[in-house]
C-alpha cells in the first residue's frame, strides 16, 4: 500500500512539473527537458520501490509544492514574474536533481560520497531559502486575492458556509512557523545518522 502511495505521489509530481514549466519557464526549455526526464525516472524508481522517505514527510512536501504551483503561481497571474518565484523554483530544481541523483546512484549501488554529501548538506541552505521564496510569493499574492475575492464563498448561501481565501493564505503562512522547523530538524537528524553514523534513540510512544 505504501508503494501505491509513492507511485501516486510520483505521478502527481510528474504532472506538477509539467505545469510549472509550461506556465513559467517558457524560455528555459533545457531545464524543462531535464526535469521531464527525471520525473519519468522517478516513476520507474517508485515502481521498483526504493524511495526511503517517510510518507508523511514526502506528503507534506508534495502538498506544499502542489499548493504553491497550482493555487498560487498558476492561479494568480500577476505574481508570476516575481523574483521570489524564481527563487523557490531554483531551490526546488537543485533539490530535486540532488535527490534523484542520490536515488539513481543508490539504485546502481555506486553512490559517490559527493552525492550523499550533497543530499544531506545542500538542504541546510536550500530549505530556508526555498521557504523564504515561497513565503514572499504568497505575501505578494495577498493584495490580488483580497481585491478579486478569488476562491472564496460569501454568506448568505444555502449551504451556510463561508471561506475566505485571503485569511486561508494568512493561516498557511503562519503554519510555516511550526511546520518548517519540524521538517528541518528531521533532516538534520537524518543527516547526523547517515553522515556521522550517530545512533539516535527515537522517542517511542
Amino acid at each position, binding site marked *: 500500500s505504501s508503494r501505491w502511495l509513492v507511485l501516486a505521489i510520483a505521478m502527481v509530481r510528474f504532472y506538477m512539473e509539467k505545469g510549472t514549466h509550461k506556465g513559467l519557464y517558457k524560455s528555459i526549455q533545457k531545464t524543462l527537458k531535464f526535469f521531464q526526464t527525471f520525473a519519468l525516472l522517478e516513476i520507474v524508481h517508485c515502481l521498483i520501490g526504493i524511495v526511503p522517505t517517510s510518507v508523511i514527510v514526502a506528503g507534506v512536501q508534495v502538498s506544499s509544492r502542489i499548493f504553491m504551483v497550482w493555487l498560487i503561481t498558476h492561479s494568480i497571474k500577476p505574481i508570476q514574474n516575481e523574483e521570489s518565484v524564481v527563487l523557490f523554483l531554483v531551490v526546488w530544481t537543485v533539490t530535486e536533481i540532488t535527490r534523484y541523483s542520490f536515488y539513481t546512484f543508490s539504485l546502481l549501488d555506486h553512490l559517490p560520497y559527493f552525492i550523499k554529501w550533497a543530499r544531506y548538506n545542500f538542504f541546510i541552505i536550500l530549505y530556508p531559502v526555498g521557504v523564504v521564496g515561497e513565503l514572499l510569493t504568497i505575501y505578494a499574492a495577498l493584495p490580488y486575492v483580497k481585491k478579486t475575492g478569488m476562491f472564496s464563498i460569501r*454568506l*448568505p*448561501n*444555502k*449551504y*451556510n*458556509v*463561508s471561506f475566505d481565501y485571503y485569511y486561508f493564505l494568512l493561516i498557511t503562512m503562519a503554519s510555516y512557523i511550526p511546520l518548517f522547523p519540524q521538517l528541518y530538524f528531521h533532516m538534520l537528524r537524518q543527516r547526523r545518522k547517515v553522515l556521522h553514523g550517530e545512533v539516535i*534513540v527515537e522517542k517511542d510512544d
Partner: protein
Amino acid sequence: MEHHHPTPLTLESSGWAPSWPWSGSGEKGPGTLRICRTILQVEILDAKTREKLCFLDKVEPHATIAEIKNLFTKTHPQWYPARQSLRLDPKGKSLKDEDVLQKLPVGTTATFYFRDLGAQISWVTVFLTEYAGPLFIYLLFYFRVPFIYGHKYDFTSSRHTVVHLACICHSFHYVKRLLETLFVHRFSHGTMPLRNIFKNCTYYWGFAAWMAYYINHPLYTPPTYGAQQVKLALAIFVICQLGNFSIHMALRDLRPAGSKTRKIPYPTKNPFTWLFLLVSCPNYTYEVGSWIGFAIMTQCVPVALFSLVGFTQMTIWAKGKHRSYLKEFRDYPPLRMPIIPFLL
C-alpha cells in the same frame, strides 16, 4: 501499602524451598506449625536505560501489580501509579493492575521494567471538560454575544424556528453526554495522557464554535425543503439520541459496578438495542445518525464535516472494538459488522 501478615516474616530467604516449621523467631512455642510463605523480591529497572530504580524485598507472592506500583510511588513520588507502566520485557506489553505476582513468569526476584506514561488525567475529567465546552460555546453564538457578529446584531434573536430547534438539540446532546459521563458510563481505564485533553478540547470546542457561528448567523439560510426537511431531520435526531442512550444503558448493565469484566453485548427488550444483532458498536451507529440528522436539519456544511470526521474516528474505534471482541470470544455472532450493518 502494608500487608498485614498473620505469620511473622522470619526469613530473608531467596529460595523457593519452604523452611522447617519450627525455625524462626520462636514467638510461638515449638510444635506449632507455622507456614512460612515464600517471599519474593522485586526490582524495578528503567526500560530505556536499564538503571535500577527500586528494590523491594519481602514482597508477598500474592501481591498485585497495583500494590507494587504503590510501593514504587513511595520511593519515587513523582511517578504516581497511574503513570507507571510496568512490564516483564522492556518492549513488551504493560502488566495489568490486577495481575498477581506469583502468577507471573518470574523467579524469586521479579524484574520489572518501568516506563513513564507521562502526566495522566482521569477520563471523567476529560469528558466533562470536552463536553461542557461545546454546550457553553454554542450558547454564546445563539445569544449573539457581542464581538461575534456585527454590533447591530448583539443579543438579537433569529427569526427562524429551525435555529431555536437546533440550539435545543445541540444543547440536549451535550447535557445528555455530561449526565452519562457522571452517572452511566463505567470506564475500564481510569486515566489517559494529559496531552489528550488539549487535543480533544480543541476538536470539540473548535467544531462547536465553527458550527454555531453559521447556524446562528444573521444571514443564516433555512433548509431548502423547509418544515418537511426539519421535521424528518428532527425525527432522525431524536430516534438516534434515544438509541444511543439505550445502548449506553445496556452496556452499563453488562458490567457490574467496580468490575472490569468484559462480555458480549446482546439485544434486550428495548427495541433500540436490537441493533446489536447487526452491529458491534451500535452506540457509534446512533451517534453518527444523530449528527446526520442535525446536519440535515441545519443544512450546514460545517455540521456535515463534523459528522464526517466523527464518523471516521468512530469507525476506527468500532473496528478496533470489533476485532478485540472477535479475539476474545470464540462464539462471537458472525452476522455483526463493526458500525454499519452489512457494510462497515
